[in-house]
Each structure stands twice: as C-alpha cells, then as structure tokens.
C-alpha cells in the first residue's frame, strides 16, 4: 500500500466516523433533550418534581377558556396539547396576536395548586399565511379579547 493511498484511506475513515456521529445525533433521538418547551403531558408526567422549577410550556389556548381582567392585567386560560390540559395564569397584557385556539409558549413555574404561573407569554405562529375569509376582518379575530385596550 502506498503512503498516498493509506493516507486517503485514513482520511475517508475519519470522514465516516464524523458522518456517523452526526447521523447518530440526528436520528438517534438524542437531540430530543434539546426541547425549547415541554407539552402539558410531559410536564404532568414529571409528577411532584415539576413543581416550582422554571420551565417553558407550549400548547394551544383552549377555546372558550380565556378570562381576561383588564383592570388587574390578569389573564387566565387553559393550555392543551390535545391529551392533557393545564390552567395558566399570566400577568401583563398578552401580545396582540393572542386569541383562543392559537399556539402559545409560556415561561414560568408550575405551582402545587395546579396552576402554571407564567411570567412571559409568547405566541407561536404557524407557518400558514392566509387572508381572512370573506366577511371577517383580521382585527375581529385578534382584537375581540382586547378590543377596548387597543383602539
């Protein structure tokens, strides 16, 4: 074996090791540690350990569950991932896109009373862009909740 071909062989071997490493990272499911937020099911599955530790929680705002107290800037709603549902309490005005049925991510702590106290509420927009259906105005969709605040 000539030195050149041996060198190429070693290089190819190195490249294969690196590629296998990347493949393992991507498809070995190890990257699942890197979640930006937990779902309500995952949080509840932690049981008592979930209490009082700072986490991000993501899901959908359950339609019909939003209670907004404009005086106290106090917002309560139920957050669902389809199987489990949690009560979220948030202070401060939500982003203007906040509405029932939209995806949100909240940062905060889950308290023993069964309420998730959020210090930061973020709206997760889907990758869909659609104009409103005939007869509805976009403002009606996201301002029904906070209409009087924002005019």
């Amino acid at each position, binding site marked *: 074996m000539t030195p050149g071909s041996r060198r190429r062989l070693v290089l190819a071997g190195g490249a294969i090791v690196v590629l296998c490493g990347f493949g393992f990272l*991507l498809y070995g499911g190890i990257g699942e540690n890197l979640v*930006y*937020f937990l779902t309500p099911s995952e949080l509840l599955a932690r049981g008592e350990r979930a209490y009082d530790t700072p986490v991000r929680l993501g899901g959908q705002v359950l339609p019909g569950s939003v209670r907004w107290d404009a005086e106290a800037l106090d917002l309560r709603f139920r957050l669902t991932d389809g199987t489990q549902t949690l009560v979220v309490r948030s202070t401060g005005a939500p982003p203007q896109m906040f509405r029932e049925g939209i995806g949100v991510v909240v940062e905060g702590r889950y308290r023993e009373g069964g309420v998730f106290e959020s210090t930061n509420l*973020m709206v997760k927009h*889907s990758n869909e862009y659609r104009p409103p259906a005939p007869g509805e105005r976009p403002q009606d969709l996201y301002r029904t909740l906070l209409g009087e605040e924002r005019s």
Partner: protein
Amino acid sequence: MPGSFVPAVVSRRRYQILGIIALAALVGAELLGLSASPPDRDMGHLQKIMYVHVPAAWSAFLAFFVVFIGSVLYLWKREERYDLLAAAAAEVALVLTALTLALGSIWGRPTWGVWWTWDPRLTTTAILLVMTVGYLALRSFVDEPDRRARWSAAVGILASLNVLVVYKSVQWWRTLHQVQSSPSTVDPAYALGLRLNALAFLLVLVYFILLRYRAARLERLVEAQAEARELAQGEELHV
C-alpha cells in the same frame, strides 16, 4: 490577470449599473408586496415584514454557500481567487445574517411578544453570526496571504456547515420559530410578493459579492505592490 473570476478592469460604473438595477428591483418588489397583499388572518399587516425578513435569510444562506464552495475549492486547487471569493461572500453573509436577526426581532416583538428568546433557531443563527465574525477577524489578523487563505478556508468550512444546522433547527427541535413555509401553507396572495422580493434580494446579493470581490482583488494588488517596493528598497540598500 490570469485565472481571474471577475476581470479587474471592469469599470466601477458597470457595477453601479447592476447596483441600481438591484435596488430598483427591490423598490418595485417591495411596493408590489406592500400594496397587493391583504392582511393576514392572524398577523394582520405585520405579515408584510416577511417580504424583507425571509429574503434576507435566504440570501444569507446563499452567501454562506458561496463561502463553503470558495473555501473547498481553495483547499483543493490552491488558487487565490477562490479564497478571495470566500472572503467576499463571508462579509456579505455577515451583513445579511445580522439584518435577518434584526428584522426577525422587529417581527417577533409584535407577533410572539418578545424581541428575543432562546429558541434553537435564533440561538443557532446567533452562533453562526459570531462564527462569521471570527472568520473575518482571523483574516484581518494574518498578514501572510497563503497562510491566511489556508486557515480561513478551514474556519470558513466549519462556519458555513453550521448553516445546515440553522436551516434544519426548526425541524430537529421543538421551537418557537415556525417551520419553513411551503407553497401549500402560504396563500398565493403572499407567495408572489415573497418570490419577487427574494429575486430582488438575489440581485442585491450578486451585486454585493461582486463588488466586495473586486475590492478584495484590488487589496491584494496593493499588498503586492507594497511588497515589491520593500523588496526594491532592500536591494538598493545592499548595493
């Protein structure tokens, strides 16, 4: 100049014409996007920020692709022009990546509710930005052209591979940033504006890279002249 990718003799005026065309295309595409797209169901008019944020991101990706190609070609062929091309594209990529992040921040504030969050897409993009700064800093600190080219090619390949991670981050990990849109998720009312703006940004990208490449070539000529002068002076002293 033998083996020149862009002849050094092209007058600056030709680049100016390309620049004017690119910026005019951008004006046209933006006006069309702004006037012709209806408010989005969720975002209202804020959807229009898409026409600058997304094309900026796409053209930044393309610029990193040029960095990758230039760096690999340099290590393979060892011709200076590939190194200069990679360097030119890297600076443009830095500008566009920074713009993308800033525009995303402006878009994120009213839609998500925050200027910044530690979401994988945002974080990997910020890392990419810092890597690009490192690449350019390395270039500016090494004086010997051959060494500079070799080292920055190695660093440039690593940095530009990170683009894949940025692009796929929204699919690999659960993120706040939405996954890539596709024609099936974007209403035709918005797709046309997005495509035209992307095209205009592509022209701007080509204009920037060509201009910066020419500057890189001229810089090398100036360096070579200075070296030759020093050499001549040294010989005079010896005589």
